[in-house]
C-alpha cells in the first residue's frame, strides 16, 4: 500500500476517540485522507463514497453497530458489488474473549485491538501494510 494514496475510514460513535484516532493517523501519514463516521450506517455510506483501504471500526455503536457494518460489507463482497477488500482493524472495549475471537474471524478483519488503544500496536500493524 502506497502511503501517498491511503484512505482511512474511522467508524466510531465517540467523538473524543475519533479525534484521538484522527490526530494519530494524521501524524503518521500526513498525506492520507481520513473519513469519519459516527455509526455503521454512516460508515457504509462513506465506504461507498471514499473506498477506504483501511478501516478502524468500533463494534458497539447506536443506530448500527460494527457487526451489521461487517455483514453488509461481506454481503457486498460476496455478491461482487464490492471488488476490493479493505483491511479492517476493530478497536473495541469488549472484554469477552469468546466474543473477541469471533470478531477476529469476521470478513476483512485483520486485527482486534482493545480499548484503551495502545497506539504502538496500531502503528506497528500499519507499518506492515504501508510503505
Amino acid at each position, binding site marked *: 500500500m502506497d502511503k501517498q494514496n491511503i484512505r482511512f475510514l474511522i467508524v466510531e460513535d465517540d467523538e*473524543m476517540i475519533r479525534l484521538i484516532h484522527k490526530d494519530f493517523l494524521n501524524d503518521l501519514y500526513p498525506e492520507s485522507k481520513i473519513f469519519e463516521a459516527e455509526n455503521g450506517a454512516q460508515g457504509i455510506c462513506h465506504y461507498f463514497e471514499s473506498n477506504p483501504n483501511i478501516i478502524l471500526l468500533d463494534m458497539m455503536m447506536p443506530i448500527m453497530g460494527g457487526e451489521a457494518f461487517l455483514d453488509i460489507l461481506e454481503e457486498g463482497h460476496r455478491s461482487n458489488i464490492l471488488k476490493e477488500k479493505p483491511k479492517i482493524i476493530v478497536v473495541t472495549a469488549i472484554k469477552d474473549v469468546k466474543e473477541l475471537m469471533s470478531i477476529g474471524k469476521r470478513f476483512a478483519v485483520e486485527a482486534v485491538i482493545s480499548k484503551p488503544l495502545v497506539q504502538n500496536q496500531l502503528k506497528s500493524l500499519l507499518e506492515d501494510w504501508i510503505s
Partner: protein
Amino acid sequence: MNTTFPNKDDFLSVPVFEMEKALNRVHNKKDLLERVIDIFVKSLSERISAIETEIHNENWESLGTLAHSIKGSSWTIGAQQLGDIAYAMEKTADNKDIILFSHLFQIFQESAQRFFEVEKTLQ
C-alpha cells in the same frame, strides 16, 4: 435475584484521573488534551442524563451501550475510576438487575462529580 452490592471503597481506591496516561494517549499534546477533555466532559454529562431516563424505562440494551461507551472513553482519557464503575454497570445491564444497576449508578455519579472537580483544576 441474588444481588451482591459492591463496596464503594473498591472503586475509590482507583485514581479519578491520571494525567500521565491522558497525555500519553495524545502524544503529550496539551492543546489536543484540552479538546479531548472538553468533549469527554460534555458527553459524560449527556450520558448521565440519558442513563437517568433509561433507568426509568428499564431499557437494558440502551443502558448497556451507554455504560460500554463510557467505559471505553473513560479508560482512554485516564479516568480509570469512572471506567471501572461503568464496566460494572455494563455487566449488570447484561443481567438486567435494576437494584444493583441503580446502586452502581449512584457510585458512578459521585465519581463523576469528583472527576468534574479535578477537571476544573486543569483549566
